[in-house]
């Protein structure tokens, strides 16, 4: 019992081994893998997904989901494109796209938190809606001619170093999100909501407002990702980032976040992001076709879930014996150990573990 729990709790450690394994594998398949420029570009190419995954982690921790992220990125990219067409400087277009992202997230959030619809259905709807809006504003046009300094956000590196600008943005955001999730009141509240919404409400946590805030945050992060991705692509189009949600959710689940909410760490997700990025990169360097990479990604997702499924099964099995039960009240008065208040029984309890 204890071992399985520890095992899951140490998911991050296992991921780290995976990551190291990936590096070993990458170095094995190509002598160009372990070069500064390759590490740099592999990192840069994954940053849009990574940025969106940060907010998605928070959403999944609360037990909700946002399928519409790819479309919000597309909508924000379209917004950047239209602004550029209209002659607006990119410096002004970026805040505007942040506002658009926030509004898109607000739409999701209101429907989920205040109208009370399931987030899966809402975001499937907005997945189509936001992509449609992007198509309406940008139609068949692809907008390019972004200024050089802006394009640098996507591809360029800081000074002479191999560190891409986008990874700097990600690093700052990731630290911010990790601190928020693990060290602040708000983060604690998210876990509480994900584990037991009712108890969170009884503890004075504003659940609805919290969820609304999360979806808005997700919208804003999508917008940041759109800014990075548009710079990376040097081009804004209505189909930007279609299918992004799949990679994002894969990364978050691989990172050890329970799809039902309540557990998972930002460190796990960040490591998982890098695992995915470098698995794809090394497979690419090895000349493996994209579809094989796709199969590999799907397989990794299924394998991860099987591990969690097994852990959950063991946990549920334990619950049947009155241990580690989740969400279900234990009838300790009539079953189990009626004299649990005593020092003795707790020792016995601990001893059994």
């Amino acid at each position: 019992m204890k071992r399985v729990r520890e095992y899951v709790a140490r998911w991050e450690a296992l991921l780290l081994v995976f990551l190291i394994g990936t590096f070993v594998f990458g170095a094995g398949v190509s002598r160009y893998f372990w070069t500064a420029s390759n590490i740099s570009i592999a990192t840069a190419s994954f940053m849009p997904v990574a940025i969106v995954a940060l907010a998605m982690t928070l959403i999944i921790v609360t037990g909700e989901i946002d399928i519409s992220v790819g479309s919000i990125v597309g909508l924000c990219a379209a917004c950047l494109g239209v602004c550029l067409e209209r002659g607006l400087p990119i410096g002004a277009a970026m805040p505007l796209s942040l506002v658009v992202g926030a509004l898109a997230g607000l739409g999701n959030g209101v429907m989920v938190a205040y109208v009370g619809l399931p987030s899966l259905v809402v975001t499937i709807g907005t997945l189509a809606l936001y992509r449609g809006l992007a198509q309406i504003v940008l139609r068949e046009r692809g907008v390019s001619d972004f200024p050089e300094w802006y394009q640098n956000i996507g591809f360029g590196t800081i000074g002479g170093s191999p560190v891409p600008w986008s990874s700097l943005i990600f690093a700052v955001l990731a630290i911010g999100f990790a601190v928020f999730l693990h060290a602040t009141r708000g983060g604690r509240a998210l876990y509480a909501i994900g584990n037991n919404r009712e108890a969170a409400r009884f503890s004075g946590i504003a659940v609805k407002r919290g969820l609304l805030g999360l979806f808005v945050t997700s919208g804003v992060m999508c917008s940041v990702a759109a800014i990075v991705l548009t710079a990376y692509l040097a081009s804004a189009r209505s189909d930007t980032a279609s299918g992004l949600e799949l990679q994002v959710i894969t990364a978050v689940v691989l990172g050890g976040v329970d799809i039902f909410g309540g557990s998972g760490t930002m460190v796990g997700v960040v490591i998982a992001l890098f695992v995915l990025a470098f698995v794809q990169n090394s497979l690419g360097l090895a000349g493996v076709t994209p579809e094989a990479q796709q199969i590999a990604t799907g397989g990794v997702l299924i394998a991860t879930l099987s591990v969690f499924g097994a852990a959950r099964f063991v946990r549920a099995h334990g619950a049947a014996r009155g241990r580690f039960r989740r969400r279900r009240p234990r009838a300790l008065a009539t079953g189990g150990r009626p004299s649990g208040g005593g020092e003795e029984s707790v020792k016995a309890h601990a001893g059994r573990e």
Partner: protein
Amino acid sequence: MITSSETPTRSRQSGGAWGGFADRILRVRELGLVVVLLLICTIVTARAPRFLDGPNLEQVALSATLVCIVALGQALVIIARQIDLSVGAIVAMSAFVTASWLEGRPDGGILTAFLIGCGVGAALGTGNALLVAVARIPAVVATLGTLAIYRGAAIVIARGRQISATVLPESYQEVAQLHIAGVPLLVWLALLLTLFFSWMARYTRLGRNLYALGSSPQSARVAGISETRGIAFVFILSGLLCGFVGVLWGARFGTVDAVIARGLNLEVISAVVVGGVSIFGGSGSVYGAALGAVIFAVLQNGVQLLRINQFWLDAVVGMAILGTVVFYMLLARRVERAEREWRRLATLGRTGLRVAADR
């Protein structure tokens, strides 16, 4: 004696005012769909009378059939409180496998082709079933994973090849052209399947068990309904129907490659949700999902005919999904409120004594 035996004190006759009201509301979903469908048709016809032309209607119906058949399976999956995101990939896989089998056989073997397609579909559906029903991985992520795997595998198998009308047997392609009593065979097939699965969902214990599972898995366990078997059944069935559609796909479009039916999953889920199947399981009807598929087909054709810019289509679809779920939500709340109000009055004793009306 405890009871004043001659007066049954409470009544909820279907003939009574309340019963009628409740019945009406319960039927509103499918009825509303028909109304919406007619409304869309009317609007489109008013602005573009050619909508009603024979060939156009026929083609709209044909477009609806493929989505419709997949939606039947998906409806049962969702009724059982699951979801299958891998449908498009299964369609592609079975279509490609079937087409490549047919490629060297100009003289047909159509029945075998159908068996192969359905077999591939059922096999892939079994994969989903194992993951969800046996390994207990949540359906959303499990089928998200298999979506990637199945699609990837299809592409690997196809190796960038397209199988076209040029090499496919004529008899196979004619399947899509056949008419019976002036109506295309495919439409008949979809109609038959819709009727069959509506019947199955309503008139067999198996079908009712799926509703029971979706409505309350805990109660189902108490009632001795096997969750594992129910979930496995719906996923395998969904796969099977996708396989069937895969075969029809090649016959209708004449060209098959590994990337066909991309995005079909969202299209199908939208049709099912708009068709009134609750995403939480347990309620909704199979023919509602079929109606949902028809509505989307008409909507797509209508957007074209009304010369609405094609770029608006996705937005319209998104609005349609959100609109219907909000509508169903409000409807459910309204029923609940009516119910609560009724209870309150009953508790206050004002309507507590209602004489039974005869049936």
